[in-house]
């Protein structure tokens, strides 16, 4: 399995965010997308998740057996928002996603245990702190089997201990042959990750390319 982007260009409205972007990530590998604000990190994640149609180039997932399905259906997406309902309890939130996403992997108790929040299932999400909500959102990734994790600033609002715990989960996912694409300011504690530095935002409007470059550091 391999996540491949070829000569990718994405526009938002009139503005070209980046172009000429190519990379490939093999199974068991992580791609860490870094760069200043506005460089298009989140945009790239959203393009892989299928919410922005590339103006040029393509994203595909090679080497999968079975019927061809869009890339997004193989992905877990952890955006800035946690996708949790504050009126519902943690259990209700997670069990919804667990049922809705299909391909169950872990049960809710295990997942909460892994993010260091055992026994909070009955509390409404609205009562939790920002860091706790983020960890519940991370627990969602563990519930269902998806080979590709798209994570956008996953460790925002997390303290050091939770960051370490998240790094463990990331390594585990990679060891099982998963792929991770992470847009982040902070290092995720990944020892051997490809990194993709996204340059300064393209001038607007920008006909010339070179907004992004790949620098594998494996």
């Amino acid at each position, binding site marked *: 399995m391999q996540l491949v982007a070829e000569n990718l260009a994405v526009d*938002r409205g009139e503005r070209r965010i980046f172009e000429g972007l190519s990379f490939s990530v093999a199974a068991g590998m992580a791609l860490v997308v870094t760069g200043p604000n506005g460089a298009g990190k989140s945009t790239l994640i*959203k393009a892989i*998740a*299928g*919410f*922005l149609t590339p103006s040029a180039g393509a994203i595909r997932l090679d080497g999968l057996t079975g019927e061809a*399905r869009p890339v*997004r*259906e193989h*992905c877990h*997406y952890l*955006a*800035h*928002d*946690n*996708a*949790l*309902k*504050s*009126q*519902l309890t943690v259990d*209700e939130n997670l*069990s*919804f*996603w667990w*049922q*809705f*996403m*299909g391909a169950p992997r872990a049960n809710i108790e295990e997942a909460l245990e892994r993010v260091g929040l055992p026994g909070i299932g009955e509390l409404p999400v609205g009562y939790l702190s920002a860091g706790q909500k983020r960890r519940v959102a991370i627990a969602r990734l563990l519930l269902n089997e998806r080979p590709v994790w798209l994570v956008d600033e996953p460790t925002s609002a997390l303290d050091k201990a939770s960051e370490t715990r998240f790094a463990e989960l990331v390594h585990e996912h990679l060891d099982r042959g998963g792929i991770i694409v992470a847009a982040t300011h902070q290092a995720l504690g990944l020892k051997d990750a490809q990194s993709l530095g996204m340059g300064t935002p393209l001038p607007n409007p920008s006909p010339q390319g070179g907004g992004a470059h790949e620098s594998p550091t494996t």
Partner: protein
Amino acid sequence: MMALFARELKLATRVGAGAMTGVLFFLAVVTVVPFAVGPDLNLLARIGPAVLWIGALLASLLGLDRLFQQDREDGSLAILLMSEHPSALIVFVKCLAHWAATGLPLIVAAPIFGLFLNMEAKAIAATVATLAVGTPAITFIGAVGAAVTVTLARGGLIIAILVLPLVLPSLIFGVAASYGAVEDPAPFTQPFIMLTAVTLFLAVLGPLAAGFALKHAID
């Protein structure tokens, strides 16, 4: 999909969500009419079906802006749309749940409001039947309005303006069928069948269009 339906219902009935508010608004509209036109029972009985329809229509428009907005704000919408389920089906299920939480109570309350308007039993039964068949259309077409205004902070009013002209057919056939049941020369079956057809048509068109619009609302 059952999970989605159950979640939507749960959210609609939890503290902070106003499934009851629609019925109250309906009651307020029905109560206001006699103050405006006078308490003449014969007149009220005559305009009863129309008042019930207008009240139910306005009440159904109320909660539409919440259909997708909260899901978009908390990021759930993106994840819902990434799943293998087609977006139109997701919208359809959300519409059904929304209707069950907000439209169904209106229909349950409508007979009581019919008594306020001195309507005879047959007229009440006919109006309730047309409301039951007709109000889902408001939700389905409302989903389109909710989807295109999902990024707007104050989309509620715009939705009402967008949706009202589009639900005119339902209003026309619904009221016509209600009158058809009580006033002799007017037919009941014909407009009722048309009303059903409009609802079924919009049950397909609405979710397809709304699903398409939502995909472009995530960015």
